[in-house]
């Protein structure tokens, strides 16, 4: 019997902010007009689209909320976050197609141009108290995502409720996460790494898919002493990801005397007893898009089980909210 491989499921993270149009300043999310909470607006948005469907426009994409869970609280570093998670269903219409059963060669249904195939997508919205930045996590299925349709529909709804404000939903950038990590933790080591550069095309093709360690040539490790390394790392904060060969490169100056030719630099950061290694040239290891295909539990429908994806999303949110895996208190 053929084993059906699960489709690629991933989670992408975004920041949520509200800007006041008149002052162009960001507003505390639970103090819109000093008393309104954006969480309430989200809840009414979800309630509206539970009962209604969007999509009667030129985009030809249907959108509705299938279900959502009531808000629960999580405290991270003395900030209370209210979390709402649920399932959105969306799909395109406007063209015809045949639905065929793979076990016979018969057409079981002819999809008309007014019908759409609705696919379920998970979402999580985290709204903090007393802060101006929340986090939104959205699921992708294969190469399909919902960022555009989710944010457009919420933006339209929000503007109809609060025309004096503007919603901003942007990619959660790893550079920002790294800066937060450096603020909260201490740098313990700096590793300069030199890779073997293949000269032969055959060697390059042969090692293309391998891990970087197989090409590791040499390492120069500096341990933190008297705040020197922290000071140097602080000075490149605004220039991340780090690019070798820039003017006044402080990382290069630090080891000038060794004449060690390196290809990348990694830092080890210690926060609350935990160590995290980050490649300064490639912040991909704290990239906020996660492939969770192997971690999630799949239903017979081929889509992830809600509780399973919800737990993974909450774990991801905790890491993003704090920049690293800090213990948190959860209350319903």
């Amino acid at each position: 019997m053929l084993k059906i491989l699960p489709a690629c499921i991933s989670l992408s993270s975004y920041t949520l902010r509200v800007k006041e149009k008149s002052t162009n300043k960001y507003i505390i999310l639970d103090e819109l007009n000093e008393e309104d909470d954006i969480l309430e607006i989200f809840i009414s948005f979800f309630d509206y689209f539970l009962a209604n469907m969007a999509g009667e426009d030129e985009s030809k994409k249907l959108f509705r909320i299938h279900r959502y869970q009531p808000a629960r609280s999580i405290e991270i570093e003395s900030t209370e976050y209210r979390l709402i998670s649920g399932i959105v269903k969306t799909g395109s219409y406007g063209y015809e197609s045949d639905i065929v059963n793979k076990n016979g060669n018969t057409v079981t249904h002819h999809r008309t141009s007014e019908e759409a195939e609705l696919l379920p997508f998970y979402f999580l919205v985290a709204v903090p108290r007393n802060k101006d930045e929340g986090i939104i996590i959205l699921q992708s299925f294969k190469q399909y995502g919902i960022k555009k349709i989710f944010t457009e529909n919420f933006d339209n709804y929000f503007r109809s409720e609060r025309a004096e404000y503007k919603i901003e939903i942007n990619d959660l950038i790893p550079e920002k996460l790294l800066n937060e990590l450096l603020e909260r933790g201490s740098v313990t080591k700096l590793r300069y790494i030199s890779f073997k550069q293949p000269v032969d095309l055959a060697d390059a093709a042969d090692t293309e898919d391998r891990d970087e360690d197989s090409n590791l040539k040499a390492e120069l490790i500096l341990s933190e002493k008297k705040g020197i390394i922290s000071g140097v790392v602080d000075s490149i904060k605004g220039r991340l990801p780090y690019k070798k060969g820039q003017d006044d490169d402080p990382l290069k100056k630090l080891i000038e005397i060794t004449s060690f030719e390196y290809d990348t630099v990694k830092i080890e950061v210690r926060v609350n007893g935990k160590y995290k290694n980050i490649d300064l040239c490639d912040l991909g290891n704290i990239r906020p898009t996660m492939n969770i295909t192997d971690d999630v539990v799949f239903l017979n429908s081929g889509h992830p089980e809600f509780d399973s994806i919800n737990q993974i999303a909450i774990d991801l949110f905790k890491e993003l909210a704090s920049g690293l895996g800090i213990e948190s208190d959860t209350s319903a």
Partner: protein
Amino acid sequence: MLDKINIFKLFKEHLGTLKKFNSDSYNIEDIILFLIFPAILAYALMIYNIDLTNNIIIILVTSFSIFAALLFNLLLLIYDIVSKSNGKKLNRNGEDSNENSVTPSNSSSNEKEKKKKTLSLKERLLKETYVNISYNITIAIISIIFLLVIYLMLETMETAKEGASAYPILLHVFKYVIPLLSFFVYYFLIQFMLTLFMILKRIHVLLSKEFE
């Protein structure tokens, strides 16, 4: 007139395969190994009077012929791998255009980029291997021609020694031409062997990728 047998471009392309990966500059070590070392060794063989006797000529002609035939087959293998790669590329493009009915996201675009990069490296490797094989076939053919010419000259000189009439000037010319052609035969022989090892390594990498 000589357009159909002009192989200068092939020599140029083969020389291009001696460049560094991801760079436009030549790898000095490869230039020394594939171009200078065979010349030094061939010259040493001449200096130490390692002449091409009739037996050696026969053995070399046979060997070159067999290898040339095998290398022609290898060209077909490369063609087969290229055809399969192109077939896979077409299928991938077909799948992408069918799955855009909802909102495409960039969640798998990084993986696609990596696949694309790997494919172009493989394509480059296939092309360079094809050039190397073609070059090796060419120098095998040239060597066979030189060896046959040397053989004819040696036979003519043998016949002249036995008293049969021959143009003395021709014999005089042969005395200089034979060492020159011998030098090139040795040069191409050593270069042929070294290029064969390079082809072996590249075919090994290509077939390993196919198995993966």
